[in-house]
């Protein structure tokens, strides 16, 4: 993180979103909204007085709701950049027009309630999409696990936070309900993965391994702890992965093949009912802590970005690569590459490998001064074009516009409107050609004459 922030060739735009992309490979024109932090980054020294004094407490997104943060905050101590942001939905100044404590206490006079969003426009030769994943919202559909209303039924990302030394419990695995150390911990895998009825049909790939890690962490941190992992299948292909799983099993983790049908509280325990499908009999465990392992789904906003960049997605919203084997990081939009879990669920080693692959493709592009463009683009026969403008409306790439031409008709000079194609922007989709009522628009390589001849040859 720090290496990226300090690199002289990297400009970091955090708390910013891409709003619009136009142009084409080698020449993308991008509009980025840099949202107002309400803190002047040039003045802020990251001293932290503002968030210490802020009176408003909100559930911390970073801590997965296991801890509180203030309305002016940095997500975590090592955040990059270490500049706070005001959460305007909760800040008293923005919701009720009072307070203003942070501005009063800031020694650098960096708090700027009037700061506005900044619109940045820039040109880029290549774009890498690395928008990642989020966890499937199991709380909405898994009633059998309590819809998230039992405090000691948590998900794997919350469990991660319990393990981090800088996390809400200082790295101790403690129950959210009463802060006690759990002695029996149950993991339920494939919550939303491989479950077409309630979740997704795919396997999320990383969960078998990180659950093995979680099981190991329980056994390492809590002497005498019992760990039970309910699984459908254990999938650990990868270098040193199977060995890691074996090690966890040897440490004492109990793997039970079967799905959990119900979790419910009884006293201060959680009763986990399931089936051991290998033994063919029901299982019941009285657990202190239950960790559900949700599917990976594309990060929210994937649909908007797909539209902006002209990317195809699969049925679940993961961005589609140009070829599953031979062009795994390219997309159908030339110059746009994919890295990480936005293309499909994957673990860290695969993500890093794909990111470097995407970078190599981008570098390959940027290393050239100019590039050849696809000649299969639309072209207008201006002598036939009536200037109706239907093609302008249907063009998804904003590649067609109307211009005025002058010509001599019967000895008189007249002007009229005709369509013209920007061949740099045109992607050769052919929408204009099929829309044109006067057949003035043709797609080179797929002319009306060619297509009709092909159809006639097959049908006549």
């Amino acid at each position, binding site marked *: 993180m720090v290496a990226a922030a300090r690199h002289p060739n990297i400009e970091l*735009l955090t708390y910013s979103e891409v709003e619009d992309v136009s142009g084409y490979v080698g020449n993308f024109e991008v509009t980025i909204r840099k949202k107002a932090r309400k803190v002047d980054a040039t003045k802020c020294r990251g001293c932290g007085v503002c968030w210490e004094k802020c009176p408003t407490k909100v559930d911390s997104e970073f801590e997965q709701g296991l801890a509180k943060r203030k309305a002016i905050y940095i997500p975590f101590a090592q955040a990059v950049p270490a500049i706070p942001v005001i959460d305007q939905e909760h800040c008293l100044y923005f919701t009720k027009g009072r307070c203003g404590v942070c501005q009063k206490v800031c020694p650098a006079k960096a708090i700027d309630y009037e700061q506005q969003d900044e619109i940045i426009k820039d040109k880029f030769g290549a774009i890498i999409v690395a928008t990642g994943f989020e966890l499937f919202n199991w709380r909405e559909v898994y009633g059998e696990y309590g819809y998230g209303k039992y405090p000691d039924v948590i998900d794997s990302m919350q469990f991660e936070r319990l393990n981090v030394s800088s996390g809400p419990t200082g790295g101790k695995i403690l129950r959210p309900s009463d802060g006690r150390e759990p002695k029996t911990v149950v993991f339920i895998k494939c919550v939303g993965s491989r479950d077409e009825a309630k979740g997704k049909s795919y396997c999320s790939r990383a969960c078998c*391994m990180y659950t093995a890690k979680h099981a190991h962490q329980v056994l390492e941190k809590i002497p005498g702890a019992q760990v039970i992992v309910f699984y459908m299948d254990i999938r650990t292909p990868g270098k040193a992965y199977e060995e890691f799983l074996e090690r966890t099993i040897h440490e004492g983790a109990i793997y039970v093949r079967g799905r959990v049908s119900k979790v419910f509280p009884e006293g201060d325990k959680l009763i986990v009912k399931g089936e051991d499908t290998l033994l063919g009999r029901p299982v019941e465990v009285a657990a202190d802590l239950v960790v559900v392992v949700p599917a990976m789904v594309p990060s929210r906003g994937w649909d908007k970005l797909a539209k902006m960049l002209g990317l195809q997605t699969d049925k679940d919203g993961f961005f589609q690569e140009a070829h599953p084997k031979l062009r795994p990081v390219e997309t159908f939009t030339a110059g746009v590459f994919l890295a*990480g879990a936005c293309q499909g669920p994957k673990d860290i080693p695969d993500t890093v490998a794909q990111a470097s692959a995407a970078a190599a493709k981008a570098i390959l592009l940027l290393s050239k001064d100019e590039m050849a463009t696809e000649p299969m683009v639309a072209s207008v026969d201006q002598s036939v074009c009536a200037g109706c403008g239907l093609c302008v409306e249907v063009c998804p790439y904003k590649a067609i516009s109307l211009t005025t031409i002058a010509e001599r008709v019967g000895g008189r000079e007249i002007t009229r409107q005709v369509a013209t194609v920007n061949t740099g922007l045109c992607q050769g989709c052919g929408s204009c050609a099929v829309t044109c009522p006067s057949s003035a628009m043709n797609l080179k390589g797929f002319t009306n004459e060619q297509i009709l001849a092909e159809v006639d040859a097959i049908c006549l």
Partner: protein
Amino acid sequence: MKRVGVFVCHCGSNIAGVVDVKKVAEAAKEFRDVVFATDYEYMCSDPGQELIRKAINEHQLNRVVVASCSPRLHEETFRRCCESAGLNPYLFEMANLREQVAWCHAKDKEAATAKAIELIRGAVAKVRRSAPLTPGVVPITKKALVIGGGIAGIQAALDIADAGYKVTLVEREPTIGGAMVKLDKTFPTLDCSA
């Protein structure tokens, strides 16, 4: 004078296991302006491409149809092959006998063969009306945009930046780091994720 060559690919048994490729190549010889037609096990392989190049020269072909897989897979391969034999790469057409014939009509070999012949008939009719095309040239802005500041975005940004190009890394959250920065140790080596 149009001189079309038709090259029918077996794709191992992918196509030839369903479609009677010999019969298809024979039928193609009868189409208008087709002066040469043949079949081969793997048209995309080096010997396959060499076969196409040789035929272009020997038979003075000025249009080429390869009947094989989806253009998504090998259109570029065969365009380059034509170009290396001195033919404009856009005077080439593909007929998809794998995805559109063999794989979806595997149970009816006779009908599959008939459909293969029809698809080639269409491709020949189209390629007869093809015109040579020339690619345009555009300049390249030597700067990359990375959308997303998790481990994937950071890694990609660092690689591009280390190669000497400017990178803008956009992250919608107040900090970079994404999901990985929330993690404790990472498998299988249990090193920290910071």
